[in-house]
């Protein structure tokens, strides 16, 4: 359960990125967040990964107010949340396998678990046969699916996808969204930030529209791309 209660975020230059936002996302929901640049979508995601704390209000995940989280508990929160981005954020000097394994290495997972879990994650995203390829040898769609495999490796409860189809052609974009749907069907909450009208319209799920730091529309079901 994700809850934003009366959340405002003001940056150092006095820019108000979020203005008294209330938002509640239930477990297992698939929510698309729309809005023009500067609407506050990225700030919202940063609040959820505890990169930022709100200037006022509360961000609560599974009953825990993130502002009260101890410094050493932040990594534990981030293991519950998988994140993917428009620019994939892959390590170019590592193979597909190693990119996914990296996420397990940094949490101190034993090699046995790495050897067992990484192929499974690659299999879920359809990259089992590309484990030895470097990111430069993968297409855009494959790179994003690799990033998704990495995001899935900790079996997260929530997936945050920040414009994951922004750099992809429609076919590859569609594949990635299908994967997100599949992951959502297995019970993972998905928060998708996107500009892609076709994707939002075909998803027919909840759509939250933001403008100037506020939620201007919240279509609970069968939402459409309306700005």
């Amino acid at each position, binding site marked *: 359960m994700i809850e934003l209660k009366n959340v405002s975020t003001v940056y150092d230059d006095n820019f108000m990125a979020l203005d008294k936002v209330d938002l509640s996302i239930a477990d297992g929901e698939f929510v698309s967040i729309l809005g023009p640049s500067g609407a506050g979508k990225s700030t919202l995601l940063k609040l959820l990964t505890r990169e930022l704390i709100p200037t006022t209000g509360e961000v609560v995940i599974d009953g825990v107010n993130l502002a009260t989280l101890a410094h*050493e508990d932040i990594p534990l929160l*981030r*293991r519950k949340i998988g994140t993917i981005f428009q620019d994939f*954020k892959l390590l170019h000097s590592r193979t597909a396998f190693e990119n996914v394994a*990296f996420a397990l290495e*940094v*949490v101190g997972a034993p*090699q046995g678990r790495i050897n067992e879990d990484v192929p499974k994650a690659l299999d879920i995203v359809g990259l089992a046969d590309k484990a030895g390829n470097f990111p430069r040898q993968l297409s855009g769609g494959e790179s994003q699916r690799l990033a998704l495999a*990495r995001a899935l490796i900790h079996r997260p409860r929530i997936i945050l996808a920040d414009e994951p189809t922004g750099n992809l052609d429609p076919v590859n974009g569609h594949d990635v969204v299908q994967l997100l749907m599949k992951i959502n069907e297995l019970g993972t909450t998905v928060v998708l930030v996107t500009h892609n009208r076709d994707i939002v319209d075909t998803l027919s799920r909840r759509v939250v529209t933001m403008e100037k730091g506020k939620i201007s529309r919240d279509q609970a079901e069968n939402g459409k791309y309306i700005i």
Partner: protein
Amino acid sequence: MLKEKLGRVVRAGWNNFRRNSYVTFGTTGVIALVLVLFLGLIAVNFLSNVVVSGLEGKVDVAVYFNTDATQDDIMTVKSDLENLNTVAEVTYTSRDDALAAFKARHAQDALIQTSLSELQDNPLEASLEVKATDPGQYASIVSFLETHKLRTTIDKINYYENEAVIGRVQNISRSVQEGGLVATMVLAIIAILVAFNTIRLTIVNQRAEIEIMRLVGGSNWYIRAPFLVEGALYGIFAAVLSLAVWYVGVGVVSPKLAVVMPGVSLIGYFGGNSPQFVLLILVVGIGLGVVSSMVAIRRFLKV
């Protein structure tokens, strides 16, 4: 499990260290320079202690008796001296002992040996060597002897201004050590700054990795530790480099120094205590490296 984690961290640190070889070389070199200077300070301290303790062990006043002075007279003067609380020790050397010592000292010199054998009588005088409780007390001992009732049996009184010489040696040593300490500190700060900048460079170069580590929930310790390992590695390599340079240098200088200062073995001192010095230099080197990493991590690594 812990071994595996530690292995990964050390490997990551080693890769950081190895990857920018030129910068690594410079950083290691600067830390090594600080360590060599530090060893130099230890050497100066050792040498000045040797010189001072050598001087402190020396006789402060030597009293030579006329050749016709009787042993009784000499013993009276000796016991009078021993009763003074400014006197620590009085050593008697009889005329025969003096001659024997003289002969032994010049055993290789045929001319002296022949000259001595041609003399009818022993030309050497009996003497008392007086060690003061405090080297500064030689003047009161001399004036006591000058006014002694048996002054006429005394041929000459030699005194040595050991205190003044000790003072001078200590002053020189103190200035060298103070100057050296300041230089070492300044250089240590420069070394920390250089190492700090190198580690900052690594942090900047690894922005992508660090961002991903944070993203996937890498523990703070795991993100930071490789940079601490990197800092420690600069210290370890600098320690090894400085110790190698130092021991080779001491090996070259020590025999030459022994000519000027007989009985002083720099190589003996540093060789005999090598485990302690190796440990000390390693600890100081690693300390410098780790402090630099900690400053860099604090300033530039957001976790």
